[in-house]
């Protein structure tokens, strides 16, 4: 088998905000040989480019402490606070640099338009970035691409299937060309994973390409992953894409149960303005009471007067989507069926202050790293950019002292043969990737597994996933290269599903988007832990409980006086 070879110092996997900032920062810190791979186009296909681009920036006039408290509290005190603080502190300088490269955010009067971000009291975000003809996440991605690409060797349409180690450190990666299935060996002294998160191809809009690729790659190398129990479920239409339910509910929309009743006020003082995970919890409780499904989102005339203009301001694909829905005769002033929609697994690779994982030479950034488990407007984009910059710089520092390293060629050949083997399999017997994905979704999207979790339901789902892992994955077949890539993505999602279920079982309390019906209370702050997962030497998935060092962190729970 012919294997192409690329030799580099830093291999960056993924080319969204995190990967692009990592390339810029690494080059500025002196790394001259950088290669960037993406399973689709470089910088043109990422979640970053598809998003509306709203981003939190902490300006000199803002209180870093209040903002940090907002974020830490909203994340149930599971934030890795020094990392979060650094990303906030450096955000103004990144904004200044983006502006010097030609990016502008929406302005109001003499200053920036700064909007509140749902779930926070003080934190504010900026919206509608523009760069030349691009608007939204695409604008920032296009500007970053222009800075990152010169001197960076790029490999579009390459899916990384395995990482390689030698002598206890990262030595490179194996990729598959997504057009020809040709294997490519990357000999790299450091690898940085910026491959977004995992949506399990759920119901939420525009997340089908986030298949936990970096999670599985890091796990296989022995890295620790953290916060994998936090699967965030948003809401949406089962029939069409809709980004901005939060906007709709803030500007006059409300959720109705099967009896046509607005029910949110029964569950939360903020009613329909409550955080997304509260809405989803309430929908599941209505189902338990026999009040649903179906549910509906009712926007009425507010859709025309307030919601559609607000969505147009946010940008992204929604303005075009709304006009197409109108063309098709969908009247959004009338109630629309609405369902919980799995969006993102918020865990990731546990990293140190420089972005390095527990495996020497393996770095992570963006949604691929574990920073905190919440999902907030403008926070993911800030996280992606700040962590990318930090991890890129960290990789540069590490490379300055790291000696040469190259993968074993026989291991490369063996992995390449294994990665392409499903193409040659006979078409009888084995399942296709789509069939496995559907079975996985039926197991983990259930209410009692993903929204109001029960121990016994999590155990049953885990048995399903183990059956798929051991029974179906080894014999999966691929009709062509497109199917082969999906097969590898499926393998990644099954591993992420196993991590989600084991971590959900291990966290015997409720916190944020992780709600256990059988453990509805939150543990005391003094007992707060991160659930870490890693591959043990015998291949089993090992669970570790790492105490959150709250006493040494700047933000601690406020003590509420107990009435006498």
């Amino acid at each position: 088998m012919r294997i192409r070879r690329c030799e580099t110092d830093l291999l960056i996997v993924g080319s969204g905000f995190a990967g692009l900032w990592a390339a810029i920062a690494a080059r500025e810190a002196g790394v001259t040989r950088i290669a960037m791979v993406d399973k689709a186009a470089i910088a043109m296909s990422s979640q970053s480019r598809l998003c509306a681009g709203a981003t939190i920036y902490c300006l000199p006039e803002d209180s870093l402490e209040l903002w940090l408290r907002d974020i830490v509290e909203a994340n149930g005190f599971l934030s890795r606070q020094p990392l979060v603080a650094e990303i906030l502190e450096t955000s103004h300088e990144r904004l200044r640099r983006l502006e010097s490269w030609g990016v502008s955010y929406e302005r109001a009067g003499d200053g920036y338009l700064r909007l509140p971000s749902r779930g926070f009291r003080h934190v504010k975000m900026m919206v509608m970035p523009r760069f030349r003809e691009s608007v939204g996440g695409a604008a920032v991605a296009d500007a970053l691409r222009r800075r990152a690409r010169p001197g960076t060797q790029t490999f579009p349409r390459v899916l990384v299937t395995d990482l390689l180690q030698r002598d206890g450190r990262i030595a490179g990666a194996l990729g598959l060309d997504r057009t020809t299935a040709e294997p490519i060996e990357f000999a790299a002294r450091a690898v940085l994973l910026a491959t977004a998160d995992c949506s399990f191809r759920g119901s939420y809009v525009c997340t089908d390409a986030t298949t936990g690729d970096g999670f599985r790659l890091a796990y296989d190398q022995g890295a620790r992953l953290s916060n994998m129990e936090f699967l965030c479920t948003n809401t949406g239409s089962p029939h069409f894409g809709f980004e901005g339910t939060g906007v709709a509910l803030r500007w006059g929309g409300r959720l109705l149960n099967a009896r046509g009743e607005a029910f949110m006020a029964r569950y939360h003082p903020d009613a329909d303005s409550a955080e997304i995970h509260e809405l989803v919890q309430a929908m599941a409780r209505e189902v338990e009471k026999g009040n649903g499904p179906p549910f509906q989102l009712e926007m009425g005339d507010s859709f025309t007067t307030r919601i559609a203009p607000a969505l147009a301001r946010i940008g992204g694909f929604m303005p075009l989507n709304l006009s197409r829905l109108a063309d098709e005769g969908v009247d959004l002033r009338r109630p629309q069926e609405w369902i919980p929609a799995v969006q993102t697994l918020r865990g990731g690779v546990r990293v140190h202050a420089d972005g390095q994982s527990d495996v020497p030479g393996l770095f992570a950034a963006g949604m691929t790293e574990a920073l905190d488990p919440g999902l907030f407007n403008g926070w993911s984009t800030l996280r992606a950019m700040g962590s990318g910059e930090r991890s890129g710089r960290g990789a540069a520092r590490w490379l300055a002292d790291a000696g040469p390293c190259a993968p074993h060629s026989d291991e490369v050949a063996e992995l390449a043969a294994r990665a392409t083997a499903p193409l040659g399999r006979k078409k009888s017997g084995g399942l296709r990737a789509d069939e496995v994905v559907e079975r996985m979704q039926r197991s983990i999207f259930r209410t009692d597994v993903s929204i109001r979790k029960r121990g016994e339901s999590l155990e049953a789902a885990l048995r399903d996933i183990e059956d798929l892992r051991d029974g179906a994955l080894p014999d999966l077949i691929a009709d062509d290269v497109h199917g082969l890539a999906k097969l590898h993505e499926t393998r990644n999602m099954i591993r992420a599903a196993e991590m989600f279920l084991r971590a959900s079982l291990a966290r015997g309390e409720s916190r944020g988007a992780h709600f256990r019906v059988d453990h509805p209370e939150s543990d005391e702050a003094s007992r707060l832990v991160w659930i870490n997962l890693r591959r043990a030497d015998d291949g089993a998935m090992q669970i570790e409980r790492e105490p959150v060092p709250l006493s040494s962190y700047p933000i601690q729970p406020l003590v509420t006086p107990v009435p006498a």
Partner: protein
Amino acid sequence: MIERIDRNLCDYCQICFRICPTDVFRLVPERREIRIAYPEDCQTCFACEIDCPQDAIRVAPARRPRIGPW
């Protein structure tokens, strides 16, 4: 889900093929055509339509059926 590529407008620039996050398109070089090879994998993100310099692509808002919690 992607609906159609207008053959009269498409100039085979291949941008849609390159940027599609879920790899829906294939090239047909001998006819200088883009084929919608895997429509079932379209995630209805509109990226191809928005980025098509010829306005040759139309995406319909309906999505493939999704599995929900109930």
